[in-house]
């Protein structure tokens, strides 16, 4: 196990990714080093704030230390940033059952069914809780998650991050100024994961929406291609034409910066600007 830990430590240093951080933290925890696991999770949260599993591992460590309130807080933050965190919802539901908040626990379990509809363990657990306590979960959305219950697709999460971006749209439309001020940049936009325009500059009305929608489509298919090849999350893609190029930079699959530029523009130069735009918007 020591050699595997060492191998993972090196790999995380060289090619940091959320899944590698998770594996390293879990392995460190299994080998009895809660302190290392905690450090790994905190680094992971800094780099990949939407990785729910890091919050789950941290919460488990806090629970083992008897700090239930801290664990509860971490899990809430975790599911807020990663609404599809299986572990986060599961542990929260267990804590709520212990606190006799059965409707709350059921809401979290049903959230799991929203993105994993055929999970037999969760279905059985829900049936057990409903039978034992004679309680049915409220059909409304969870106060924190604001997403649908049942088998319908989850609505885009409305948390501090997304509201920050929406708020920024009106007051900080200048966020794309730096990027669009670069020589050779014709226009740019920020789009969410569903291909909806959040912010746009120098792109004709109507075309920006089309570009955002096509960019989201390409990101989705490219991610599928990368998964087939064994690679992880897509971060950048570029379409090169003989009279221009489209460059897209994204982070944690949440928001993308799509730039329409001349062929002479170097992607590496724009990447920093694009990342800065996301930071200015509070989305990275």
């Amino acid at each position: 196990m020591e050699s595997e830990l060492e191998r993972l430590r090196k790999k995380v240093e060289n090619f940091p990714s959320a899944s590698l951080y998770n594996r390293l933290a879990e392995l460190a925890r299994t080998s009895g080093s809660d302190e290392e696991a905690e450090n790994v999770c905190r680094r992971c949260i800094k780099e990949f704030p939407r990785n729910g599993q890091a919050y789950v591992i941290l919460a488990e460590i806090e629970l083992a230390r008897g700090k239930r309130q801290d664990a509860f807080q971490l899990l809430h933050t975790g599911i807020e940033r990663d609404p599809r965190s299986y572990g986060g919802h599961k542990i929260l539901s267990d804590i709520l059952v212990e606190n006799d908040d059965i409707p709350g626990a059921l809401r979290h379990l049903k959230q799991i069914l929203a993105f994993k509809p055929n999970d037999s363990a969760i279905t059985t657990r829900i049936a057990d809780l409903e039978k034992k306590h004679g309680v049915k979960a409220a059909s409304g959305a969870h106060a924190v998650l604001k997403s649908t219950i049942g088998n319908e697709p989850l609505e885009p999460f409305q948390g501090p991050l997304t509201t920050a971006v929406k708020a920024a749209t009106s007051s900080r439309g200048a966020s794309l100024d730096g990027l669009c001020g670069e020589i050779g940049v014709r226009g740019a936009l920020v789009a969410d994961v569903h291909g909806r325009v959040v912010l746009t500059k120098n792109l004709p009305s109507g075309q920006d929406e089309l570009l955002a929608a096509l960019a989201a489509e390409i990101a989705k298919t490219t991610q599928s291609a990368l998964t087939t090849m064994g690679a992880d999350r897509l971060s950048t893609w570029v379409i090169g034409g003989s009279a221009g190029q489209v460059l897209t930079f994204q982070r944690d699959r949440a928001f993308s910066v799509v730039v329409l530029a001349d062929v002479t523009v170097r992607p590496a130069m724009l990447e920093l600007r694009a990342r800065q735009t996301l930071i200015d918007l509070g989305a990275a």
Partner: protein
Amino acid sequence: MNEILIQLNRVRGVGGCLLVSADGLVMAAALRQNTDENQLAASLGNILESAGKIVSTFGLAKFMNFNAASDQGGVLMIATGPAFLAIVIDPSANLALLQLEAKPFVDRITQRLSL
């Protein structure tokens, strides 16, 4: 054609390559054993379709190449006449150098396809 792809695989930073038609059909492939070439080609075909729409809508003239990167590698697609050469890129690869080194292979494939 397979021979060219096998030679291309020897270039530093190349983790496999395949030749796909514009509609995502595999024409030749030299990929790693555990990679599903049909699935990959289908995804690449979808990418080509959407990329083609962007190129025509935004006046980018001729579609030349596409590249996507992640922390653990990526993919580079280069137009080779009527088809596209897709190169699986290792994380350690230098993209600019790789594009340069792939150029003679692209020319050879284009020549073969135009025969």
